[in-house]
């Protein structure tokens, strides 16, 4: 039985023009928000933090310059320049000042910044010295945690320097009840407060802050209503005049009151989505199940004839354009880790209702079509797949995948729901899950998941086994014994496990320190207002007010660890082709394949340190000479030949990704070394840790900090992404690759796993190509794989785009949990994407 109309609707001309306007110039940094929050904070010293945030939010929304872009139907822009960004000095600011002169020309995500903006920011930033969340977080960290971060075992950069974001809020409540409904609920909670409650004071001030924040958003909408009215009075084109008058009416009604129609529902949604990102710099604020909570308004307008399907599609497309109008400037290293100007606003269609029926409706199709129409990286559109998913919806999704945009990402209900139940979420709520950011399963409107809490490089602890805890001449981790003393694979593996456990503990320490800093310095009353049970508990989200609390840091590099462990097992201990010491030497010598500039720099630094320690002068000549020596170093022929032989022996071994049980079993175990220790740890919000296995795009920059590894990976090359096999090492086609990945315990990685696959366009051509593609996804999901995403583009196209970026401005590729414009990515990340094995290129 189908109860949906899937007929596609044409894209309107307006959308083409809206998109063109958005991309007219390079994104720009603006100073207004930084000035306004500083002004407000200067005037609120001494008040509780919740109240200061609310007053600042109110002050910002009252004074932030506003604009209605040409032909917009859905309005609300955080910056005057399209795709611009504001800054958030309360979280951190010094990185931006340090990068003032480079941010415009850096390889990943450049932003224009005018001299005037620099001046304005320099005037307000100093106020925040010693007051930022990052400074407080740092002061809370253990010395060994700071050391581990210096040695690049993990980076918690995301929340260390920025707001947290990573939630899905009750858009449905704002649409259905209006912010006035939320205010009424809050007033009720205030009225019920008991003066004898030990937390009375903090609760009261928090609830008052919630009301101030909700009113701030209502007033902000009214400013747009006024602006639209003014513009209408000046507009000569009758059609546009009427649109502006309609906008004025819509913005005077929502988000204050319940939406009366689909247009108002879209606008109410948008004000929530936009202003939450003004309140804090957190990204991955995810719309979630848009096709579900918007449907009643769509359905009633279509039924009453108040709106055509064409009009509905145009409004949805307008929302999609707006999602690309938001932007965020990150520090240079993070920009590489999250490359592509992405805000990871994940929006998911399909799946099940909370009572277990198929949830597909007209909007599920129209959302997929909107992505085809707008063809931009936002929203990160996703689809839930379960055994009852209609084939028609999956075929439509496959059509979008075939365009090469890298969307949608496919998620498997059949494993995600039980994995959430395993973390204590009841079945009905688990069935209603949405995805946050890249791949993180989440209970809509009820959870503070702290997803994406850190990147943990699973390969670095392996290096520590070989070095017995030393890194660059320093003691960087625990001692697990000299490798010469290891007499079995089991001993080696046990040492790796110990190194993992130790560094995971430090990762927890880093995350909890940052968590605490956000709790104390950055409670967010507006965000809290829209997540259960913050109002009822009188507690901000950041203090643990959510119904469910988790911390989800992600590990990556499973393929490298699995293949490395297999090398040690097979070639060192079973076949005795070389010893661990010989392997260590071969890795240090980069398997005889020469040294790169990173190794040269690192060596020079160590030489300089040794010279300085001996009390001698470090001259620039000495540094230069060392670098030159390393770069031009020739090993003795015999030694070089032996290293190359070792590399060849390793390369000839079967690798993870080829459906070889012996290797895949090791991969499963390697993943467990990361996922299993985490849930034993608690966070300050009263929740537990849960592991994710995905890298965003950090596998490239963090790989550049990792030496050669026993799987034959050369020094500083990218580490394998997510749960995917190493690029170019899965040689038996997509089914073999999927089978290997499906052998991991995805259910234990309840913060999400990420499997990248690159398809060649020929593998998806024609109706049959789509059918087979869907069968591939279903077959992987039948084996309890969790997530899959695809790049459908041929290698030649990508190579050409590197040479002629001007010709490929609109080329969108799948990076990790999101898609991005290929030409905006750094060269090394572009190369990494090109190296991913293209499947199906047989004929």
């Amino acid at each position, binding site marked *: 039985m189908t109860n949906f109309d899937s007929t596609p609707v044409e894209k309107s001309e307006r959308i083409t023009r809206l998109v063109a306007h958005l991309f007219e110039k390079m994104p720009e940094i603006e100073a207004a928000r930084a000035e306004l929050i500083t002004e407000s904070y200067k005037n609120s010293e001494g008040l509780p933090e919740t109240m200061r945030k609310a007053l600042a939010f109110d002050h910002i929304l009252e004074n932030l310059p506003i604009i209605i872009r040409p032909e917009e139907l859905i309005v609300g822009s955080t910056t005057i320049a399209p795709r611009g960004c504001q800054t958030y000095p309360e979280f951190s600011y010094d990185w931006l000042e340090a990068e003032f002169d480079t941010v415009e020309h850096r390889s990943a995500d450049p932003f224009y910044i005018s001299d005037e903006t620099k001046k304005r920011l320099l005037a307000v930033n100093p106020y925040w010295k010693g007051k930022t969340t990052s400074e407080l977080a740092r002061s809370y960290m253990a010395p060994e945690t700071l050391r581990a971060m210096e040695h690049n075992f993990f980076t918690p950069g995301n929340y260390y320097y920025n707001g947290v974001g990573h939630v899905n809020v009750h858009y449905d409540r704002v649409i259905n009840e209006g912010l006035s409904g939320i205010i009424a609920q809050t007033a009720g909670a205030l009225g019920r407060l008991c003066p004898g409650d030990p937390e009375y004071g903090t609760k009261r001030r928090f609830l008052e802050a919630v009301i101030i924040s909700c009113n701030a958003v209502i007033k902000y909408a009214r400013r747009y209503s006024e602006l639209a009215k003014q513009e209408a009075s000046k507009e000569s084109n009758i059609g546009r005049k009427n649109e502006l008058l309609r906008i004025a009416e819509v913005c005077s009604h929502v988000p204050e009151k319940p939406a009366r129609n689909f247009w108002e529902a879209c606008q109410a949604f948008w004000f929530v989505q936009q202003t939450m990102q003004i309140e804090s710099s957190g990204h991955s604020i995810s719309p979630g199940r848009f096709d579900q909570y918007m449907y009643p308004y769509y359905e009633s307008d279509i039924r009453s004839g108040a709106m055509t399907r064409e009009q509905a599609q145009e409004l949805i497309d307008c929302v999609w354009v707006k999602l690309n109008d938001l932007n965020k400037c990150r520090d240079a290293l993070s920009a590489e880790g999250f490359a592509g100007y992405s805000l990871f606003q994940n929006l998911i269609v399909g799946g099940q209702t909370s009572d277990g029926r198929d949830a597909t409706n007209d909007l599920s199709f129209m959302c997929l079509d909107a992505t085809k129409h707008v063809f931009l990286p936002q929203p990160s559109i996703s689809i839930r797949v379960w055994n009852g998913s209609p084939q028609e919806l999956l075929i439509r999704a496959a059509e979008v995948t075939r365009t090469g945009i890298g969307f949608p990402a496919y998620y498997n209900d059949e494993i995600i729901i039980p994995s959430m139940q395993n973390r204590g979420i009841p079945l009905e709520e688990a069935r209603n899950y949405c995805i946050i950011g890249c791949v993180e399963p989440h209970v809509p409107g009820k959870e503070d998941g702290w997803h994406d809490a850190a990147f943990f490089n699973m390969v670095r602890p392996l290096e520590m086994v070989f070095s017995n805890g030393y890194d660059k001449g320093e003691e960087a981790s625990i001692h697990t014994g000299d490798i010469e003393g290891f007499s079995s694979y089991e001993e080696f593996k046990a040492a790796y496990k110990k190194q993992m456990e130790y560094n995971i503990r430090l990762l927890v320490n880093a995350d909890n320190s940052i968590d605490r800093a956000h709790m104390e310095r950055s409670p967010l009353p507006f965000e809290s207002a829209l997540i259960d049970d913050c109002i009822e508990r009188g507690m901000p989200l950041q203090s643990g007010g959510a119904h469910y609390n988790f911390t989800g840091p992600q590990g990556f590099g499973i393929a490298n660890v699995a293949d490395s462990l297999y090398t040690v097992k097979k070639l060192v201990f079973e076949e005795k082709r070389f010893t661990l010491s010989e392997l260590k030497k071969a890795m240090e010598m980069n398997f005889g394949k020469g040294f790169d500039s990173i190794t040269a720099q690192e060596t020079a630094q160590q030489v300089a340190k040794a010279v300085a320690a001996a009390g001698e002068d470090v001259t620039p000549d000495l540094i230069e000479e060392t670098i030159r020596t390393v770069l031009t170093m020739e090993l003795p022929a015999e030694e070089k030949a032996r290293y190359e032989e070792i590399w060849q022996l390793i390369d000839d071994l079967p690798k993870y990704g080829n459906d070889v049980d012996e290797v895949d079993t090791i991969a499963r175990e390697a993943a467990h070394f990361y996922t299993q220790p985490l849930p034993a740890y608690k966070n300050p919000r009263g929740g537990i840790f849960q592991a994710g296995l995905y890298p965003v795009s950090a596998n490239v920059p963090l790989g550049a900090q990792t030496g050669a590894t026993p799987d034959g990976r050369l020094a500083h090359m990218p580490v394998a992404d997510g749960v995917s096999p190493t690029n170019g090492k899965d040689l038996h086609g997509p*089914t073999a690759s999927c089978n290997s990945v499906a052998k991991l315990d995805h259910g234990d990685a309840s913060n999400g796993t990420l499997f990248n696959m690159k398809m060649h366009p020929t593998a998806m051509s024609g109706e049959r190509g789509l059918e*087979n593609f869907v*069968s591939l996804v279903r077959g992987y999901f*039948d*084996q309890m794989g969790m997530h899959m995403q695809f790049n459908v583009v041929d290698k030649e196209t990508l190579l050409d785009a590197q040479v002629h970026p001007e010709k490929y401005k609109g080329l969108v590729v799948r990076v990790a949990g999101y898609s991005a414009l290929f030409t905006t990515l750094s060269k090394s990340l572009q190369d990494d994407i090109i190296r991913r094995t293209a499947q199906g290129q047989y*004929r």
Partner: protein
Amino acid sequence: MTDYLDTRGRIFDIQRYSIHDGIGIRTIVFLKGCALRCRWCCNPESQSYEIETMTQNGRPKTCGQDVTVREVMETVKRDMPYYSRSDGGLTLSGGESLLQPEFATALLMAGKDLGVNTAMESMGFAEYSTIEKLLPYLDTYLMDIKHMDAAKHKQWCGKENTLMIENAMKIAKSGQTQLIIRVPVIPGFNDTESEIAAIARYTSSLPGVAQIHLLPYHNFGEGKYTGLGRPYPMGNASRPTDEKMQRLKAAAERGTGLYCQIGG
């Protein structure tokens, strides 16, 4: 008496996620040894029954491996979830599978044991009595007819086509399998409308046969000839243009009532 799962044969490759030969997602088992020596053959390592060494990416690769049906099925079974989602299954290719009839039959029986769809790409170069034995286990017979002219066939493929043409009719009449005729479109050999139309006319005379596939020539196999130390017989012949393929498709469909598909 031996279990058919222990039947041994010689293969040179197993390719998973094949989506161009038969319906759904399939695994192709390539049997080694062929009776013909078609000039355009893209798998020259398939032709000789002998185990050979081919240079690939500068390193020697052994082509040919003796295996039991059981061993082959261990790989085939790994993709069961994908077969069941796509109605796919097992495809035999070659070489000419019929030159190892017991092995081919046993593989198809094992495929039926799994309950998956079975297909075979073959020219039908064997006595019909041999073919007859495997038909009960074969869902789709993808049969090559390369040319209707016996002399030209012999000149380009090394053997005349008489036996194969007769077998096509017998297979069609048996009604035991879905028969699909496939025509490699080879420049200078059969790439004219009249030659394709002749094959299509014969195809339409085969009872129950509704489909003909035109497979455009490609030179992806050229590197393998170099790797085997053999000259590439097709020189620098180029792939038929899309327009040409469309014309040939029209020629195949004209007046035959056949459904013609370009590519597998």
